[in-house]
């Protein structure tokens, strides 16, 4: 079983040893990059198909069903269409910045994919500060969005870019703060170490994933909400709200550059889902002891797929938020909740030293209460504000 688990690692070692020692690091890096691009490229293709099919079915439509069996070749047809389209640049656009923007998006996003451990010994780059690296390159994506919006010289583009930047800055705080609780408990910024910390079983059968603790569950929910906003997914897709601002900062892009932007957005979603899997869902670890024999990368990609489906499901369910709702949700609910969650994580950490009878049960109850009480009171406060006054009309009686 170990051979299958490590098949990609050994394949890489086997391929690398043909080369002279000087170029071995380069070859190794090149192989990792090729594997990453191939894997996530095909996941992107499959996701577009799944998304269109699932959204169609949610709306009682058929979805793509013309190209190939069940429309499975639709991504291929889309790719050919995108690549053969004319590349239009507006006359008044800033040509250089307009040209560079898609690359400025795709580079940080693919860098972010590099630090995630996809299986046992399968992190392309094992950085000591992996979490920090992820957020650092993620922050660079905002610059790309600004470049695209500004250089198009179009009011919809600039509106979309400003919305996107405001949204990304606001939701980066809860995203990072909900991650900090995990970093506090594990005591390391390395994503490999974070996964290893979850690679054990509680009571012999429950996985030691962070999502199964009170602070971890709250952190996971907060992280997923912020991640949806960070990757501009519905219901937080204001930057490209079709009904209001055409396609936001993508309005003036066509052909291959548009495809690159699209790819970048989906890769951003995959990267942030992969981080959620790593931080909260145990990365490549198996959910039950009797399933440990299944190769580690299978678990990782199964969990990643589940999160992608969750994103699609949410997109099919929730309507788009208004900009003021978006902002007040970030600053009045997510931010306080993630700060409280850090305190809960600290309590959980120190309560590990309790030694009286049923200490672990009490620890669980206390932390759950510490999360649930603020949540319920926030909910009550938000629901209490929702009072609709009697509608008054100017002319009609």
């Amino acid at each position, binding site marked *: 079983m170990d051979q299958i688990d490590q098949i990609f690692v050994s394949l890489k070692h086997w391929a690398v040893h043909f080369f002279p020692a000087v170029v071995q690091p380069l070859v190794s890096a090149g192989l990792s990059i090729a594997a990453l691009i191939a894997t996530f490229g095909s996941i992107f293709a499959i996701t577009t198909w799944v998304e269109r099919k699932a959204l169609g079915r949610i709306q009682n439509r058929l979805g793509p069903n013309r190209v190939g069996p069940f429309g499975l070749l639709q991504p291929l047809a889309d790719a050919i269409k995108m690549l053969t389209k004319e590349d239009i640049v507006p006359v008044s656009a800033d040509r250089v910045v307009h040209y560079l923007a898609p690359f400025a998006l795709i580079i940080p996003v693919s860098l972010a994919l590099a630090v995630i451990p996809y299986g046992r010994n399968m992190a392309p780059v094992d950085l000591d500060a992996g979490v*920090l690296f992820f957020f650092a390159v993620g922050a660079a994506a905002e610059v790309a969005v600004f470049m695209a919006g500004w250089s198009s010289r179009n009011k919809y583009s600039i509106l979309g870019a400003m919305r996107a930047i405001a949204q990304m800055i606001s939701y980066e705080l809860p995203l990072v703060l909900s991650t900090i609780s995990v970093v506090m408990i594990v005591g390391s910024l390395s994503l490999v170490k974070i996964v290893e910390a979850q690679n054990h079983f509680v009571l012999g059968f429950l996985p030691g994933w962070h999502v199964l603790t009170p602070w971890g569950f709250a952190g996971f929910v907060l992280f997923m909400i912020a991640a949806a906003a960070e990757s501009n997914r519905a219901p937080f897709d204001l930057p490209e709200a079709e009904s209001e601002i055409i396609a936001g900062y993508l309005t003036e892009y066509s052909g291959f550059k548009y495809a690159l932007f699209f790819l970048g957005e989906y890769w951003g979603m995959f990267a942030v889902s992969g981080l959620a899997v790593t931080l909260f869902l145990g990365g490549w670890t198996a959910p039950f002891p009797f399933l440990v024999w299944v190769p580690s990368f299978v678990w990782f990609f199964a969990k990643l797929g589940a999160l992608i489906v969750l994103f699609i499901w949410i997109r099919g369910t929730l309507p788009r938020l208004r900009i003021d709702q978006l902002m007040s949700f970030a600053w009045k609910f997510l931010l306080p909740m993630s700060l409280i969650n850090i305190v809960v994580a600290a309590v959980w950490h120190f309560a590990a030293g309790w030694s009286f009878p049923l200490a672990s049960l009490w620890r669980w109850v206390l932390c759950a209460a510490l999360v649930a009480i603020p949540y319920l009171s926030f909910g009550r406060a938000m629901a209490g504000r929702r009072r609709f006054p009697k509608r008054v009309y100017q002319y009609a009686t």
Partner: protein
Amino acid sequence: MSPVFAILAAMTLASAIAAMSFRKLVHSALSMILTFSGLASIYLHLNAQFVGLVQVLVYVGAVAILVVFAILLTRDSTRDSSVRSLAKSWLTGLLVAGAVFGTLAAAILGSRALDRAAPQAAEITVKKIGEQLMTRYVIPLEVVALLLTAAMIGAVIIAMREKEGK
């Protein structure tokens, strides 16, 4: 000087010069972002992972975006700025800059700090940085926190006054 360092330094310097000489403010801001990234990569090259990544996170992710936003909100960013990139007194400026550089270089080269061999730096982990921040550098940290809070309160007050005046 390793070739990697040479490339990074050249990129950083070139983008810094570009940031000064572009006529459009947004172009200057974008090349400043490139300068920040160049500095970050130099930190990373020097094995200072934490500082390098924080440089990207704070400068590229926050400061640069703030600058760009300020440009967008305050003036017509599509027009060329009327300010000439080279002022008339550029010769004086060059002289002053040369003098400052010479003094600094002389001071650094003359000091005994360079004679010492660099101490073998231990692996700097985030944990160590955290411990240092909470013990030895706790007062600077608190002062910075106070400063930032004051700035934030100031910003809130400015925003509130505007609302009242309306």
